[in-house]
């Protein structure tokens, strides 16, 4: 009913392979894009700079990790370290005088190269063993950053992000930073959307489902696993750069510690493995739910509805948040993206209960 399929005819290969063959989907994307572009003019600054901006950047990061976890089926517990490499690399390059446009790519490449080195080691192992070896990467990178003052920026271990220009225009203020982050996020999204319809994406899926079956089918699993590590690390590095330049405006080792890696993995799992939309939804839940719950509980407490001490009050959002994640995974193990998919399937045939096959 709502997602009308009547009149959609695939008369050419291009039309058949379109990203969104259903007009309503295209409309939705258009509206979302328009909202994203108009957001700085509509949203109060508080919501732009501390909700929408980090959400967009974290979605970019989750997309990068999703390529590795969701598409290629390789777990990575050191994703924050990958992001840190990109962030620190780019800051040092921009300070050395490299233009930002080049430095963000260089930072991504640096992440990709180092990520690939660990990817090589990881290729020998699978599953839980892979989790542990990527965890080693997290600890190693953390240790190196905080122990080499030349990287971390002296005794205070903080580096400010230098002022930067994009295409000759100085990026200052929340508007400009938001649009830079949005542009990169859209590029990454577009890339991920297209991965699904290329031989690269199909090879990754084959590797994910069973790597030796893929090898029998003629997929070079070694090559594609490495490629997945390479691409994912590149995207991770780029999202780290955005985090450093557009959001935090300074980097410290704590911004990329193990907790952050775990959060990134949670975003992918809660959002939905192998789903572009899932990365956005997962990032929203993991990043914003604690803040929203905290404010909600705070409002209730101010109103006198929760007569408990501040320490207990501070733990209530944590309990709710934990419950929320467990509940989502119980009711829909395939993630938030699947929740939307179920809704969409329902409305596809509404008011009838089942589609005729």
């Amino acid at each position: 009913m709502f997602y009308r399929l009547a009149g959609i005819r695939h008369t050419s290969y291009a039309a058949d392979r379109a990203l969104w063959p259903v007009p309503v989907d295209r409309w939705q994307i258009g509206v979302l894009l328009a909202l994203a572009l108009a957001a700085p003019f509509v949203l109060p600054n508080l919501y732009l700079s501390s909700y929408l901006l980090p959400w967009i950047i974290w979605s970019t990061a989750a997309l990068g990790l999703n390529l590795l976890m969701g598409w290629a089926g390789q777990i990575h517990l050191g994703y924050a370290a990958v992001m840190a490499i990109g962030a620190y690399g780019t800051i040092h390059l921009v300070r050395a005088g490299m233009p930002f446009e080049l430095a963000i790519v260089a930072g991504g490449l640096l992440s990709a190269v180092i990520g690939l080195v660990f990817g090589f080691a990881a290729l020998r192992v699978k599953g839980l063993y892979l989790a542990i070896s990527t965890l080693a990467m997290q600890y190693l990178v953390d240790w190196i950053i905080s122990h080499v003052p030349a990287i971390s920026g002296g005794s205070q271990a903080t580096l400010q992000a230098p002022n930067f220009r994009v295409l000759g225009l100085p990026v200052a203020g929340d508007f400009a930073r938001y649009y830079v982050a949005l542009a990169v996020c859209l590029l990454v999204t577009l890339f991920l959307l297209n991965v699904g319809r290329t031989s690269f994406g199909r090879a990754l899926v084959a590797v994910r489902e069973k790597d030796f079956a893929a090898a029998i089918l003629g997929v070079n699993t070694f090559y594609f696993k490495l490629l997945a590590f390479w691409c994912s690390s590149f995207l991770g590095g780029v999202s780290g750069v955005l985090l450093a330049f557009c959001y935090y405006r300074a980097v410290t080792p704590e911004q990329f510690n193990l907790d952050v890696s775990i959060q990134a993995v949670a975003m992918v799992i809660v959002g939905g493995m192998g789903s572009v939309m899932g990365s956005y939804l997962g990032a929203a839940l993991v990043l914003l739910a604690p803040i929203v719950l905290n404010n909600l509980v705070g409002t209730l407490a101010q109103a006198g509805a929760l007569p408990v001490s501040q320490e207990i009050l501070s733990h209530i959002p944590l309990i709710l948040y934990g419950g929320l994640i467990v509940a989502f995974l119980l009711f829909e193990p395939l993630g938030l993206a699947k929740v939307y998919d179920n809704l969409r399937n329902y409305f596809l045939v509404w008011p009838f209960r089942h589609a005729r096959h």
Partner: protein
Amino acid sequence: MRKMITGLALAAGLSATALASAAAQDKAPIKVGTALDFTAVYTFVTAEYSQGQRDYIALLNAKGGIKGHPVEIMVVDTGNQPQRGIEAYERFKSEGAVLVDFLSTPVSRAVVPRALGDGMNVVTMFHGRSDAADGKVFPTIFPMTPAYWSQATAIVKYIEGQEKGGLKGKRIALVMIDSPFGREPVPVFEELSKRLGYEFATFPYPSPGNEQSATWTQLRRDKPDWTIIWGAGGGQPVSVREAMRNGVPLDHLASVIWISETDANIIGADQTKGLLRFEGVASGKDPAVIKAIQQEVVAKGKAAGPAEKVGSTYYNIGVASMALFAEGARRALDKEGEPLTPAKLKHGLESIKDFTADGLLPPVTITSEDHQGGGRGRIAAWDGSKWTAKSDWSAAYQDIVWNLVHKSAEEFKASGK
């Protein structure tokens, strides 16, 4: 569902009445935002610190506020996550706060670039960037208390006073957490060792410090005359226990500021006798302002937490932070008039002169250059039930501290270009 809606409506109604009663007061409230870590890393200090802040504000409001303005303190948890701290910061800003406090080094560091850009005052009592003492480079960051570097010099000064024959040839060891925080005082100790002639060695233990036995075995081989521990939270009692196990006399063991009554009781109140620590705020219930809180707030059942925590080390630090803020606000309103803005408060704080909060603090003098407030502190020892002062309030070797402050602040300035 219906129940939930009724609940929400009730909550909305209640908050509306709360707002109405606030508006009934004659002058607009002055707002302070504190986004603290109640749930993750800084749990060892946050509850007492925040209780001290809220109790002092309650005392202030009971006495008529700051020149007739009631003070409103907003408290929210950050879980030590920078992004939650930034959200809280932006929210405080939009609510019209004139001063914010995070009591977390990672969160403070993440907020510093924004706060400098917005001209928002940030309190960083005993934490955050040591080089924020440089008011020229960090115009709106206010440590107002001795930086870690000043704590290091104060401890060495005390040792110097104890060793009558001078420090030449003596061995001083630093056992510290292997993190930027733990390594921060090292240049000060090294510089002083050149000046005073003692031998200096460092013994790092891995973060978070639950396991330190290997480090202390090494230290035992080195046989230092004095040992200094530099950590925070759960690692501190572990350090002291390991020191005792390895035969380090506690009256020759000095700690950075982060060790409290709670830690002493964890180790064993009697066993800990003699342990030394740096303090920048008097602890205990003797200072006049703490007595006033006991009478006006705690006795009237308005305390923000358990009464037995009143007068504890971190509680008093919380009180001191708000007392300094109130003094700054008072001066700002006197000099520049209504309404209080962040910029006026900055000037007010920078005009604080020889302020002791009725004996709670050493004389604090803040200027537009010196946001450290003079760097005065003292050494206290645990006597089995409380911390007693072993020296008078004083600042030591500030030339070394300020060399480092200027050097580090210059680096910070250059990095933002």
